[in-house]
């Protein structure tokens, strides 16, 4: 497809479970971002990849959160031992050259931890 694809679109999981959220960026985009957003708030930065490496992971809230981008394309955000406070919409975006160019967002994954 032409846009950023995120799967699944919705995920309900039980507290304490492990989840993986997937992001397929636009082909050729070297920069990839993960954000999460709670109701009524702006996107909260989690991690930024340039190619395969995490250029900035300072937004990951704790060591339960981890993200990879092994081949510089698809990225997976992994959350261990989920907590109810992790419930949010997780947004992925990609751009051609980082923040100097426009970012294209996926539709997000709505994660609900019950």
């Amino acid at each position, binding site marked *: 497809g032409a846009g950023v694809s995120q799967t699944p679109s919705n995920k309900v999981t039980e507290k304490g479970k492990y989840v993986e959220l997937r992001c397929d960026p636009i082909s050729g985009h070297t920069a990839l971002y993960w954000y999460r957003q709670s109701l009524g708030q702006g996107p909260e930065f989690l991690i930024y990849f340039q190619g395969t490496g995490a*250029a900035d992971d300072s937004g990951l809230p704790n060591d339960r959160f981890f993200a990879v981008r092994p081949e510089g394309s698809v990225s997976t955000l992994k959350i261990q031992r989920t907590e109810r406070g992790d419930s949010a919409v997780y947004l992925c975006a990609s751009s051609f050259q980082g923040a100097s160019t426009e970012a294209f967002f996926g539709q997000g994954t709505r994660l609900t931890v019950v």
Partner: protein
Amino acid sequence: SQQGEEDPQALSIQEGENATMNCSYKTSINNLQWYRQNSGRGLVHLILIRSNEREKHSGRLRVTLDTSKKSSSLLITASRAADTASYFCATDATGRGSTLGRLYFGRGTQLTVWP
């Protein structure tokens, strides 16, 4: 803390009126972008203005940037009910402690346009 902050938090107007939203930021930037979001899902890019530009137009959108005041404004002229959405500014940041390439978002302005 967030780099950008939009003002007002909420704006309600009638169709045909102009809507103005403001964004303030804290550190030096290379560029500033405005995004729109419907129903809390994906954001859509509207316009990018670089730090050496003062004004930019795109259709009914007009963006200004004042780097001396560290502020930007987004003007939507002749608003329509379909413009109802949340609007966010996003900046890169070149100040100390920032990461080149990272995008910083504000909390957004919720615009409601009544028919």
